[in-house]
């Protein structure tokens, strides 16, 4: 194959690649305030569980309904609804990433990622806490 034809192929490939990348609908990290400005748009919220407000979950009545309140670092707060089971480590988490969209006044979430102190044994502070617990 000639070098020229390789170059043409690579150029076509690059063009396809650009198109593909364009078609990948990346989401964004948002605050509660900025998510409220674009209702219906899929975003990632970085927030924490508001422990002063109730967590509503009753697996016997409906295992696919969890609601709680989240606050972000700017102090804004929103109700979150998650149609799945309550992650067992939710209460312990010190930070959550909520994936979903704002619908009205509620954040409709389809995935929760949690940062939990216990998972991270490489975290020195946590190790220092546990080393004396045993």
């Amino acid at each position: 194959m000639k070098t020229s034809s390789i170059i043409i192929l690579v150029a076509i490939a690059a063009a396809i690649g650009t198109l593909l990348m364009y078609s990948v609908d990346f989401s964004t990290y948002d605050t509660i305030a900025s998510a409220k400005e674009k209702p219906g748009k899929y975003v990632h919220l970085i927030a924490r569980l508001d422990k002063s407000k109730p967590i509503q979950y009753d697996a016997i009545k409906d295992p696919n309904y969890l609601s709680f309140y989240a606050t972000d670092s700017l102090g804004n707060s929103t109700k979150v609804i998650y149609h799945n089971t309550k992650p067992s480590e939710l209460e312990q988490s010190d930070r959550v990433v909520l994936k979903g969209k704002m619908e009205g006044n509620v954040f409709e979430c389809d995935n929760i990622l949690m940062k939990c102190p216990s998972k991270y044994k490489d975290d020195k502070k946590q190790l220092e806490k546990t080393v004396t617990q045993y």
Partner: protein
Amino acid sequence: MIFENEHLLPGQVGHFFVLLAFVASIISAIAYFKATGTKLEKEKRSWILFARGAFFIEFFALLAVFFSIYYICSHHYFEYLYAYKHASKELEAKYLLACIWEGQEGSFLLWTIWHCVLGSVIILTAKKRESSVMGIVNTAQFFLTLMIVGIYVFNTRIGSSPFVLTRNELAGPIFTQPDYLKYIKDGIGLNVLLRNYWMVIHPPILFLGFASTVIPASFAFSSLITKDWGGWIKAALPWALLSGCVLGVGIMMGGKWAYESLSFGGYWAWDPVENASLVPWIIMVAGLHCMAVYNSTGNALRASYLFVILSYFFVLYSTFLTRTGILGDTSVHAFTEAGMAMNILIGIYVIGITIPLLFLYFKNYRKIPTIQKEENISSREFWMFIGALILFLAALFIISVTSLPVYNKVFGTNLADPQDREFTYNKVLVLVAVIVGLLTAISQYLKYRQTGKKYLVTKMLWPLSIAVVISALLAIFYPIEYSKKGPGFLAAIYLALFASIFSIVANAAYLKTVLKGNLKAGGGAIAHLGFALLIGGMLISSGNKKVISDNSKTGLFIPFDKDPTGRGTENPLENLTLLKGVPTQMGPYTVTYVNDSMAKEKNRTFYNLHFQRVDTATGKVTENFILSPDAYRMKDNNLSSNPGTKHYLSHDVFTYISTISAPDQDPDTATFKIHDMAIGDTVYYSNGYFILNGILKNPDNERFHFSPTDTALVADITVYGKDSTRHKAYPALTINNQEINFIDDTVITQNIYLNISGITSDKKFKIGLKQTNKLTSFITLKAYVFPYINLVWAGLIIMAGGFVVSLLRRVKAANYIAAIAIALVLMGLIYMFLIANN
């Protein structure tokens, strides 16, 4: 201060050997490069001998390091941070190795040891290329051992040593006391999620795969430095095949692990960590196709160089992604942040070898010979090259999407994963599957240089017709029901399925008609057949995966808060709650959560679910089985669950626990009342009575599976309720390492707990009874049916077999050796993938 009861010797020995290995790798690398640069035969020879000596010292030292860590962990010397972090006393012996490679340092060590094993083979076989190939291998060793040296240069710690002491690393009041070790009762231990036999085998195989990618790249280097264009291909091709085989198997072992023991609900989730090891594999496969083309025609030499170098580059890049903590939120199982100094080291490693290699490649690019004549469009090499290019582009696509966190870091953007990550990848790669399927089907029949049209048409006619017929039958009788992404994607799935079937049929026919059953020459065809089966199996099992724990269909539950957003129907609600003892309809099954049983491990519980399927027409029970998914409830109430799966040849019924009833907050005030019972005695309680039928020693029954070497007494008890129900209960007492454990049993419908707490002097047994009136327990679970998942594993095994066949042919192994090698590989893989857990 003198600290009491510390065992500092193994750590000092270990640290000494780390330093020795580090120094030896530098010496060996330098000596090998000296040998490469010397023209004089005699001088070259002596440099090589010297380098070999250093290399074998390095090998020995690394083994010694490994044994030091093993010793420290197996003796629970928690004065070492590594043992404290990764080992614990209750950890079973079989997980000791797993806990070593759970950590960064242990896994780097594993990698270096594989380098040494492969390097030894190179020394035995590579002849004139030894010095340049081993020069690169030792440079890689230098970087890897640097990660674990843990020495201080200008007050900065370089690398993280596995032998640091807990008291030096952690701050805490106990460390000011000489007897601090008394207060460290146990280590943290291996993460419960990782306590699985795959954790024992998957990392070594995967790291062998990673380690093997350096070899083809080193051969490329050897050729670039000596300007001996092309000669390296023949020597490097078996290594590329080895890489393709081992890395491919290692990646899918991860998939099988995720499938059978992690609650991801599948074998592939396009997680960045998975992608990061897939990408080098794809590029290596592209590279070895180019190498094969060069071997037969002299084409595709430049691409061969590029692909083997890039494959190695992406192995290192994936190390960077998974170990620096940069993936952060996007991955569920990357290593966490390792500290700035470590990140810089890893960064240097990524570019330290590959950038000079790429530089050499582009510098010599014009000198690398190519064939000026255009390839014939009917030639095999043309289409093989196209296939390699498609694979390469697919790999680039995957890694570009995966690298999102890197863009965020570099450009300061705040982009996040797309809404449906899997679909983002699937919609592109399903098209790649179509093309690759068609290419692997046709290209076997093409000849190098040029193929006669008539030959191709006559040969292809039958496979094509058969594939069309099978696909049509499949579409009619077993349609793919994946419509949630629209008709376009469904059509693409069908196309890919057709291409896979076509490839399976065409390759099988090729083995039979063209090679006349000569399997020895058919490595390529076998591997392609396996790959097509793998892809076809993925399309079917994912396309027709069914959620049977669909809550909305049972009609049992009414949402207690009206959904303000108006839920769409495309997301079935996948969790179903089962009350203990209450039969619930789930898909075609009636499922009852019967009871739970404690496992031998602390805090681990098996939940026994009885599945029954009744034929509605005849009323006969057609299926009847128990699944026991389990869950660990950890100290801080976290839940970690492992699936229970019923394997059929044609499908799997797959369940895992997503919630369990909370342990009661109010302390259970009821206590055990001990009854001294002889065998045959009866004891009454408020709702009935129970009889001690006998005492079993090390039983192997529906509840326990003890082996004759255990020490376990199990009481065989039958409970008769007032409501004329009868229940079996098996409380147990086991002795393990001179510790007595009690395993209670419960009869939840009667609200009683039973235990066996000892033997009285007059040969009676102490049976404890506790009555409570606590709430009924429940579990919430997810359940799926995965159809034809075995095609995926069978495809992988066949593909690996194909790689091995090709490899043995390339190294001209004798027939009997080849037969033994293939038999061993196949037996091992079949056992691991299809038998071990079924």
